């Protein structure tokens, strides 16, 4: 019967639309947006760190010009970071995300090495300009840690929605969204403990 089919279709359509709200359509969209915002903050703080480096290198050079290798290491690591395209799109590609993380990690290690070298130059350590730069760098590292932690929390909530039933159906068949890459625990530890420095 034609009429029956129409009624059935109407019910199916209505049911589908009503369950969209119940199946986390808005929730997933909101979490997706929040995750992107948290990621932008991470990128923002990494950028802030990269912006501090030319000044820092120039100041250290004035006192410790013959620490060429260490200074070059920092400059090189910075250009490597700058060479990577850091956009929210990065989150869709785990391989690129990993590369980005490794580059930032490289810069962290190079900076730690530089600050260790500085210990040997009391004049530099007493320089007000350097101390201000150092405090800015420390503050930025701390902001990076906070931004990363917030990103981790957001991604955890987002990934949960993408994996849990029934929201996973909405994510998979309707929005075509997949889980986002997160900073792994091993990575977190590497960031919070200073790297080994060998001369």
């Amino acid at each position, binding site marked *: 019967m034609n009429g029956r089919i129409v009624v059935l279709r109407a019910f199916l359509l209505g049911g589908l639309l009503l369950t969209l709200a119940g199946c986390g359509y808005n929730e997933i969209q909101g979490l997706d947006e929040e995750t992107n915002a948290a990621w932008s903050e991470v990128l923002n703080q990494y950028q802030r760190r990269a912006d501090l480096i030319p000044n820092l290198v120039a100041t250290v050079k004035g006192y410790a010009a013959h620490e060429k290798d260490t200074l070059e290491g920092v400059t090189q690591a910075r250009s490597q970071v700058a060479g990577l395209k850091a956009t929210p799109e990065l989150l869709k590609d*785990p391989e690129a995300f990993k590369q980005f993380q490794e580059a930032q990690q490289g810069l962290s290690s190079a900076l730690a090495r530089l600050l260790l070298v500085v210990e040997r130059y009391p004049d530099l350590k007493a320089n007000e300009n350097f101390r201000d730069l150092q405090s800015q760098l420390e*503050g930025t590292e701390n902001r990076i840690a906070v931004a990363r932690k917030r990103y981790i929390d957001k991604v955890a909530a987002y990934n949960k929605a993408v994996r849990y039933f029934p929201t996973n159906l909405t994510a998979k068949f309707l929005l075509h969204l997949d*889980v986002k*890459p997160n900073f792994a625990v091993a990575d977190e530890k590497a960031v919070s403990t200073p790297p080994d420095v060998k001369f």
Partner: protein
Amino acid sequence: MSVVGVTGPHRGPTGTGLAFLLACAFLLGGSAAQALDVPPLTGRIVDLAHLLPPDGAASLTAQLQAHETRTGNQVVLLTLPSLQGEPLEDYAHRVATGWQLGQKGADNGVLVLVAPNDRKVRIEVGYGLEGTLTDARTSQIIRREMVPRFKAGDYAGGITAGIGAVLGTIEGTAPAVPEPVDIRTGGEPTAFQYWMIGTFVGLLAGIVLSQGLRHARALFGSAIAFLVAQSAGLLVGVAAGGVTLLLLGLLLSANRGGGGGGGLDRAWGPGGEWGGSLGSDGGFSGGGGDFGGGGASGSW
């Protein structure tokens, strides 16, 4: 083994299972890391290490209170004997966000944390004050005002001088402008959304109804469907609109009833409607400010 690991998208049951286990491990690790509790916010000065004499604490509290009345900035001191091994920066951020110092939206809070047994001090700065109370400036305050006095054992002097410098730095900041209350940001459906849902439900009912009237013409059925849809939508929309207006009215009247005095004091002062309020005797609480990790640390 690589130090950098990522948990990428997994396909198939094995991958999903692995990701789930990783997530479990992660959540466990996260909760186990928080060892030291955030103490209750009992006032502008939470002197758990007993570094300040009673009269010194009273005058400092008055100073901080007067500063908030003038500028809206919330500056709070926490001293505690030991961090019990917890990283200073992590703990300071946890306390500052836990207490929500500063006004919501303006994020103009500052936390000064002193841990004498660890010989560590930190000034944690809210988002909104990062521009004036910069990392470099907070570092200078710690190096010049606080650490030398702490080294000499003069904790009260170092704290007073440090907080004085913090207040001096942010004194010129304009009073924080509160965020306007937006009733549509609450995540509640708007009247329009109610109308949409109502129309849809009505349409559905209309179709069912028209199909039920077997002898009626198709055109007649559609007309009924449309009419039912519109009226149902309108009904739900009007009802939702009424509820929204009622809530708005309540919200506005509550807002108006908040302050008692007049002029500037009412707007920025204690008990004002912007949060970050305090009673004349205790009852002090954070206003919903957020912190992004700005500030500086020092040790002696």
